[in-house]
């Protein structure tokens, strides 16, 4: 999975990057299954492998002008970016490894029923706000991606 992630940021051709991203999504779903979170793995496969990947691939196909001259993939500040990213990684990784997480280190499966109960009782208000957010996102996306000629024709 980490290899897939690295391929996403280093590959020159953006379509190859998107396919590496799909590999990364799939192995992440496998990791959720290893953690016993079957519902989250299913959501991962449905939402990301199914929907977001296709959306991103469509966007790439819509915007690519042809692969004759692929420009340089990185900024000039690539080394600065690498240093910053490595510093963040090192700091978080050091914190994660050196912290004592207690003795009960065995993964407990997350039941679908418990998730559903928590989602619709304790977290019912965030759930409703989330549906509002999704509606706003749909309307915003339609508005932004509309071609300008169409609203001239509408006027």
């Amino acid at each position, binding site marked *: *999975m*980490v290899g897939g*992630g*690295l391929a*996403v*940021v280093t590959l020159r051709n953006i379509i190859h*990057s998107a396919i590496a*991203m799909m590999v*990364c999504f799939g192995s*992440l779903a496998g*990791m*959720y299954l*290893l*953690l*016993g*979170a079957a*519902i*989250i793995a299913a*959501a991962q496969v449905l*939402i990301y492998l199914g929907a*977001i990947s296709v*959306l991103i691939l469509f*966007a790439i196909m*819509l*915007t690519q*002008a042809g692969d004759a001259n692929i*420009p*340089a*993939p*990185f*900024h000039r*500040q690539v080394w*600065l*970016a690498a240093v*910053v*990213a*490595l510093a*963040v*990684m090192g700091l*978080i*990784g050091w914190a*994660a*490894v050196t912290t004592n*997480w207690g003795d009960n*280190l065995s*993964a*407990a499966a*997350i039941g679908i029923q*418990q*998730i559903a109960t*928590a*989602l619709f009782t304790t*977290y019912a208000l965030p*759930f409703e706000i989330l549906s509002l957010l*999704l509606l706003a*996102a749909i309307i915003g*996306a339609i508005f*932004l*991606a509309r*071609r300008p000629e169409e609203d001239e024709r509408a006027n």
Partner: protein
Amino acid sequence: MGLAGYLVVSTLLFGIGAFGFLARRNAILMLICIELMLYGVNLSLVAFNAYLPGGANAGGVFALMIMAVAAAEATVGLALVIAIIRTRQTPEVDEYSDLKE
């Protein structure tokens, strides 16, 4: 592979995403890298939920919510990128320099 192993993997994902976001020039790829960073956080949430007791499954619920928010963000972000590319004819973010004096 214990909790620390999952946390290290999620840290690596987050760092790779951060590096890609800072270093790549393509706008769509920057969006993909934001997604990678969100997955890093998501994986750590699910791992904490599985390994640490007493959270009332908050980790799993918030992982699902982050997925929905990430989907909304990807939709709006891609629509914005497509609109920008349509007017500027290039996906490279360092060509968007009209506001620079």
